[in-house]
């Protein structure tokens, strides 16, 4: 079994939600908020909310889409906002641009809905994050498997979902390390293709673990490659 020179360092993560300064009672307000809120706010309502609502594997994508659907009652706009896939973004700026573009285009096409009051207001919040070393590291696939199995939901989300913003690559911490430190590019690719919208964090983790187990079996004595 290969031993990585650079170990994978597992982290512990905790988020606290700070209440922001913007709120929206119309689609025009939403656009204004999207344009001016902090990066931490865009992160909170997209990346972070996917983690805290990971158990919803049908029809929930981000807070903006959910609010537009339920409180603004604008299905078509909600659908477009929900269709933005956070895996396509390696920066908050790009994600913000697309969110603004979708809402701006909709308002341009339907100016009559821009000032229509919604049922409930949307409150922009921010995620503040504390990360600490978990005290667990992996140099082999065995150790990596054990470490992934011990992670909390927040830590799994940190390494598997939010990581692309840190790496600024369309991948995740796990795949990045497996490809670059253990040279397991095929396994890394399989893991990166797990759909985070149709899986819960638990089922995504189970898939990661199963893929690692399959890889381990390939390296067992007598296994055909």
């Amino acid at each position, binding site marked *: 079994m290969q031993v990585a020179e650079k170990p994978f360092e597992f982290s512990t993560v*905790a988020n606290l939600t700070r209440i922001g300064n913007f709120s929206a009672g119309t689609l025009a307000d939403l656009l204004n908020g999207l344009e001016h809120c902090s990066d931490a706010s865009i992160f909170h309502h997209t990346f972070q909310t996917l983690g805290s609502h990971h158990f919803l594997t049908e029809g929930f994508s981000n807070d903006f889409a959910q609010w537009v659907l339920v409180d603004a009652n604008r299905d078509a706009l909600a659908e477009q906002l929900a269709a933005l896939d956070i895996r396509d973004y390696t920066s908050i700026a790009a994600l913000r641009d697309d969110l603004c573009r979708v809402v701006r285009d909709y308002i341009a096409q339907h100016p009559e809905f821009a000032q229509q009051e919604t049922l409930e207001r949307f409150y922009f919040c921010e995620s503040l994050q*504390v990360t600490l070393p978990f005290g667990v590291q992996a140099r082999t696939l065995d150790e990596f498997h054990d470490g992934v199995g011990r992670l909390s939901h927040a*830590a799994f989300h940190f390494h598997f979902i939010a990581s692309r913003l840190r790496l600024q690559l369309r991948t995740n911490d796990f795949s990045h390390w497996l490809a670059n430190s253990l040279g397991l590019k095929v396994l890394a690719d399989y893991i990166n293709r797990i759909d985070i919208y149709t899986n819960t964090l638990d089922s995504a983790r189970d898939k990661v673990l199963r893929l690692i187990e399959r890889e381990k079996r390939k390296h067992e004595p007598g296994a055909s490659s």
Partner: protein
Amino acid sequence: MSPVPVASRTPLTDYAAVIGEGEIEELRTLAKPLAGRTFEMVNSTAVGGGVAEMLNRLVPLAEELGLNIRWEVMTGGEDFFEVTKAFHNALHGEPYHPDPKHFEVYRAYTEQNLKRIPLDAEFIEIHDPQPAGMINSRRAGKGHWIWRCHIDLSHPNRVVWDFLEPYVARYNGALFSSPEFARQLPIPQYLVYPSIDPLAEKNKDLDPAFIADVLARYQIDPLRPILTQISRFDRLKDPVGVIRAYRIVRRYFDCQLVLAGGSASDDPEGAVVLREVKAAADNDPDIKVLELPAWAPLEVNALQRASTIVIQKSLREGFGLTVSEALWKKKPVVASAVGGIPTQVIHKHTGLLAHSVEGTAYQIRFLLSHPEIAARLGEQGHQHVKENFLITQNLKNYLTLFLMLSQRAAD
């Protein structure tokens, strides 16, 4: 003076079966840098009420994680609690007739308690408006002071809020249960949801025989659909509106309604509402109006578990933790879109929201007609509570906040 002794201790490891070993390990990791450091919680009652209930559970868990935590309760005469009750109602938006004596009483008891309670911990959390003035004892640059507001401040009475705001503005931060309750303040405001304890008597798993016993005791038929609202007899919980919704549903389904709340004997307004509810029930044998003893957690638990659908048709609500209690038991919930309820009931994902009597009735009928959807909402509701509204998450929020404050001070 001695800190409040906690009523019960449930070891942290017992929660592993509920939330998983990884989450417990994470709590231990987060607590490590805070071990041995001093924390103080101050509120205005040791028993009764949601805050005392939460602290009773939270303090021992924090102790087990190695935090040097103390819980203090401020004291006051009847005059103080009359004033703070008036403040409480006024902050909820009810009419208030300003009386300068009220402010004098508040200041006097604050000073009296400051002489009695040592506020020398590194992290001090003051709960609700009653002890908010204790910030007066803060010495410049000493300690991290947090004010946690458990009430709905979305429409506060201006006079009372103007009196309290200068105190609140001197804290390092404020915690609210909903972004809607936050105010314009010069300090950071954070969102921390209230929580339920999955291992408490009100939420733990029950023997089916006990549930059957409770149903038999109250003459509720387990074979027909049971609609339940658990809440005190208060107009803001709209129990009469629930009866009206039930009557619409009855045209289509042979169901029963249970309205269960605490005894109204010591609450003059509650007694009036209870009479209104009984009048509206009009001796319908399928409407059970139950006055439970002040603290009957096992009965409440059993009634929620036996329910087909749980209703929370409040007209106004702080957070409405009875919703999380029902969701934890995998019950489909139909509730009003007010206060903290939409945070718990994500429409069509973890329950159904309604805005009227007719809407409530419609959603109930829909769920009675589609039990498979009701089951899915209940299951997803359970997961939502597990992820966001359990006491272990509350503890994690506190650890995160304390770590942040401490890191900020070090920078």
